[in-house]
């Protein structure tokens, strides 16, 4: 529907001819889209019609307006009526160049090909054998293309993902490499550093092993030479602990207080703290940092972790680390937030003894390196590990002792164990997946993905658009086909309706083409003629339908011939139609020409009606009329005869007083009889049922006879009735009717003429004879003349005392004369001076005579039982 709306709204149309030709007119913009849509639409209709087993011809007239404002035409033709292809030729106009393209479609497989030509000659040459140079195997079905596109989308999507993964993976591998390098560097560095620290402790121990006693100055000197903050960053301090028994403590305190090797005053305040009883004491003796030695004298044996570590070191002779401990402040108290560890190395009297017992015996003290985690790791890691990695270090108990740049999410990680003097730290290093990738590298994966997705999306869109286009075309086609179906249904409905109307018409309807072949024959025609439409259709009507003259049986189809020759408005004829069974049926028929839009006669429509019943009715009516008139006359005649005889004395002498009423009765009766006669005449005249028997005769004897008959009546009134001598004149008329008219006219004159004469005279004219009745009577006023010829008109003004008439005489006379081709009129009349009534009769062979003859014959044919 919407296509049609669109088409029609653009002053275009889609029409369906009854013979299955679709006419498509389109005027609109010429775009490839339009052409494609229209082409697909037309092909769709063709396919549908093909599918329905119907042949359809599409004739499309398209004025496609291009931007150059030239017009194009789209035509479609069946080039291959019986072949397997729908061929649609489209003649377009582009850039003022003819553009002819053909769309071929194998309607079985739906394969389609389009051929373009810009040269009309070549196009028509090709069109003469359009399939010649086409290899239909090369044609890709539409669906394969679709799948190809789908496959391409899948491929693109797949390779996109694959590329994306590859890029990502490569980046990840690279990142991992970078990360791993970082990690290994870091561990090496830390291990190295820690190794250096241990080395430092070993070196320091050499100082003690090389001398029996190391005083404060010697210690300080060595300590300073180490340049801890410079060479061993991360070591908080290195202190020396002296191992003492309870007994040795007082002497030790005394010796320290009096050690003036570094400080001239010695350290008089030196004490042991906490001063508790232990099996052995590990007293912090030298701290190596001036003013930091405030925790000199602290007994590390008082702290279990430190004591066991120191004892283990003493026993093993190896550097040993504590677990995580809280570092002490100047007063020897543990600082809650400063965590770290000690690495201690036992100091013996000389080199490290071989056995445990010897080691215990030779043991003098410990050198402790104090590490603050924060300081240590900040120093070591900050130098080596890049900022962009996270580092978390746990001690051997699993507690986190260092945590930097903590990150979450998708990470790469590496966990390494760092052994330090018997303790093991776990360091976990974490970094983002694409660790170390630059922005471009990071974006690459995204770009690959985005590009692939975009490409696939575009292709999908192409596919979708194309599919949608096809769907739309199919929709258009089906909508249009629907339209056409509707239209066809309407056409069929109309046709059915027309046929229903035609078949329900009681009259036989027969339509002829120009050559007189029957092209339509309705049911009533079948019934009347007894012939079936199939026996009649397509043949000349004369072969099957014989219209005959009712009486003579002569062919009577002139009315049809007249219609076929274009004569319009022929009067209905009455003929008989020969039925198939040989019987003849009376029919009333008429025919009229059919004109086309140009006014040419393209055929005729003949209507005929069975008049059997009509005839019966007419006969009945006629019989009724006869019987009625007969039955009326019988009593009237009896009355009239009896009254006459009474008055004449046939029944004996009549009382004088009865004569007048009896005379009145007689006159009335006579008038009644005349009235009945006249009414009967009028009825017959008007129904065309009055019989006229035309003949050619000399008017003279008739006039003579009538004058002679009526002369005696005139004599009674002293009125002379004469015939003016004249030449013989032959007329064509019914002599009886002429007599009747003369009788009427002379009778009328006699009625209104009391004295003088009534003269009958004739005057021959060009093609007729005029007969005039001239009286010297009362005359007629102009007003009365007007109405004299009406029915039941009587001239009341002059009627007093005159014999009454029926008022029908003149009317009947004039009608009869006119029927015979003449006329009757008042030629002259003057009140008091008499009147002249005249009538004419045609000469034989005159046009009036011929016409009258024709009419009378026709009426005679219609009413064969005229009276």
């Amino acid at each position, binding site marked *: 529907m919407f296509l049609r709306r669109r088409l029609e709204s653009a002053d275009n149309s889609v029409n369906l001819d009854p013979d299955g030709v679709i006419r498509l007119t389109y005027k609109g913009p010429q775009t490839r889209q339009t052409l494609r849509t229209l082409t697909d639409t037309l092909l769709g209709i063709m396919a549908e019609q093909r599918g329905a087993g119907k042949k359809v011809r599409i004739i499309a007239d398209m004025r496609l307006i291009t931007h150059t404002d030239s017009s194009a035409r789209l035509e479609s033709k069946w080039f291959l009526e019986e072949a397997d292809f729908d061929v649609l030729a489209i003649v377009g106009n582009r850039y003022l160049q003819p553009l002819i393209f053909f769309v071929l479609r194998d309607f079985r497989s739906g394969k389609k090909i389009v051929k373009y030509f810009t040269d009309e000659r070549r196009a028509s040459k090709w069109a003469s054998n359009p399939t010649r140079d086409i290899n239909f195997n090369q044609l890709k079905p539409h669906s394969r293309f679709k799948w190809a596109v789908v496959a391409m989308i899948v491929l693109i999507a797949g390779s996109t993902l694959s590329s994306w993964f590859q890029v990502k993976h490569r980046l990840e591998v690279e990142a991992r490499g970078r990360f791993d390098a970082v990690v290994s560097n870091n561990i090496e560095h830390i291990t190295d550093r820690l190794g250096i620290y241990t080395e430092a402790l070993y070196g320091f121990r050499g100082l003690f092993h090389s001398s029996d006693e190391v005083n404060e100055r010697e210690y300080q000197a060595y300590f300073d030479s180490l340049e801890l903050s410079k060479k061993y960053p991360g070591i908080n301090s290195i202190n020396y602990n002296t191992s003492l028994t309870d007994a040795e403590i007082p002497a030790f305190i005394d010796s320290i207080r009096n050690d003036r090797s570094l400080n001239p005053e010695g350290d008089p305040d030196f004490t042991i703290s906490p001063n508790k009883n232990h099996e052995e004491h590990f007293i912090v003796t030298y701290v190596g940092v001036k003013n930091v030695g405030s925790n000199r004298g602290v007994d590390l044996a008082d702290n279990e972790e430190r004591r066991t570590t120191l004892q283990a070191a003493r026993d093993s002779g190896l550097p040993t680390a504590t677990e995580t401990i809280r570092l002490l402040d100047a007063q020897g108290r543990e600082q809650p937030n400063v965590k770290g560890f000690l690495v201690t190395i036992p100091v013996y009297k000389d080199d490290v003894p071989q056995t445990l017992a010897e080691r215990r015996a030779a043991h003098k003290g410990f050198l402790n390196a104090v590490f603050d985690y924060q300081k240590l790791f900040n120093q070591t890691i900050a130098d080596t590990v890049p900022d962009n990695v996270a580092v978390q270090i746990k001690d051997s108990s699993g507690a986190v002792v260092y945590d930097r740049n903590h990150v979450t999410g998708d990470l790469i990680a590496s966990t390494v164990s760092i052994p330090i003097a018997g303790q093991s730290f776990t360091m976990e290093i974490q970094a983002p997946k694409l660790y170390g990738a630059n922005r471009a590298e990071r974006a690459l994966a995204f770009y690959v993905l985005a590009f692939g997705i975009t490409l696939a999306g575009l292709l999908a869109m192409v596919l979708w658009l194309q599919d949608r286009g096809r769907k739309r075309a199919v929709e258009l086609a089906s909508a249009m086909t629907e339209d056409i179906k509707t239209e066809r249904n309407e056409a069929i409905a109309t046709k059915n309706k027309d046929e229903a109307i035609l078949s329900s018409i009681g009259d036989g309807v027969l339509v002829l083409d120009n050559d007189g072949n029957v092209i339509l024959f309705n049911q009533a025609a079948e019934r009347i003629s007894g012939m079936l439409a199939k026996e009649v259709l397509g043949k000349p009507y004369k072969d099957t339908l014989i219209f005959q003259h009712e009486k003579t049986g002569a062919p009577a189809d002139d009315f049809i011939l007249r219609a076929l020759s274009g004569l319009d408005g022929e009067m209905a004829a009455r003929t008989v139609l020969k039925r198939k069974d040989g019987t003849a049926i009376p029919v009333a028929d008429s025919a009229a020409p059919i004109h086309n839009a140009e006014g040419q006669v393209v055929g005729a429509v003949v209507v005929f009606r069975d008049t059997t019943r009509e005839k019966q009715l007419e006969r009945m009516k006629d019989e009724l009329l006869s019987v009625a008139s007969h039955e009326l006359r019988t009593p009237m005649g009896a009355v009239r005869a009896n009254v006459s005889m009474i008055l004449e004395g046939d*029944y004996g002498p009549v009382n004088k007083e009865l004569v007048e009423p009896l005379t009145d009765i007689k006159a009335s009766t006579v008038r009644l009889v005349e009235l009945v006669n006249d009414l009967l005449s009028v009825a017959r005249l008007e129904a065309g049922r009055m019989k006229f028997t035309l003949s050619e005769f000399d008017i003279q004897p008739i006039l003579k006879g009538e004058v002679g008959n009526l002369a005696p009546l005139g004599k009674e009134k002293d009125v002379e009735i004469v015939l003016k001598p004249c030449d013989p004149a032959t007329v064509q008329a019914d002599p009886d009717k002429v007599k009747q008219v003369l009788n009427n006219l002379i009778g009328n004159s006699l009625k209104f003429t009391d004295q003088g004469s009534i003269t009958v005279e004739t005057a021959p004219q060009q093609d007729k004879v005029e007969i005039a009745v001239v009286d010297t009577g009362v005359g007629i006023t102009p007003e009365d003349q007007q109405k004299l010829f009406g029915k039941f008109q009587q001239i009341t003004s002059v009627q007093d005392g005159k014999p009454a008439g029926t008022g029908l005489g003149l009317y009947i006379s004039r009608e009869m004369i006119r029927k015979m081709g003449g006329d009757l009129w008042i030629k002259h009349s003057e009140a008091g001076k008499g009147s002249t009534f005249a009538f004419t009769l045609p000469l034989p062979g005159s046009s009036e005579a011929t016409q009258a003859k024709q009419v009378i014959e026709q009426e005679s044919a219609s009413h064969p039982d005229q009276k």
Partner: protein
Amino acid sequence: MHKVLIIEDEPAYRKIYKRKFEVSGYEVETAQNGVEGLEKMRSFSPHIVFVDLMMPQMDGFRFLDEIKSDATLQGIPIVVLTNLSTSEDAQKVLEKGALAILVKSDTEPNAIVEKANQILTGATTESSQL
């Protein structure tokens, strides 16, 4: 005395015409239909016959046919006296051998007698008057 046969089914007309012809000096015999008329033709041997057309049993047309087919009855003048007034009827009866046809309602009894007189005396050759 001339003998006239009136064949008429209507009693009123039989009486009228019988009376008229009697007062006019005719010997009159009547019949009610064509069958009776044929019998009277033979038994009565009229000089002239007046016959109606519309009658039961045998109408005037058939009566004329019967006369025409009986050689013994030929030559007797027959006048049709009827109230049927069409020219066709007139033509038909004249063809069947009637000398004249008179319409009863239009014709004065005197005129009928006059017609009989004319025929019998051969005074006139005019055969019909409508």
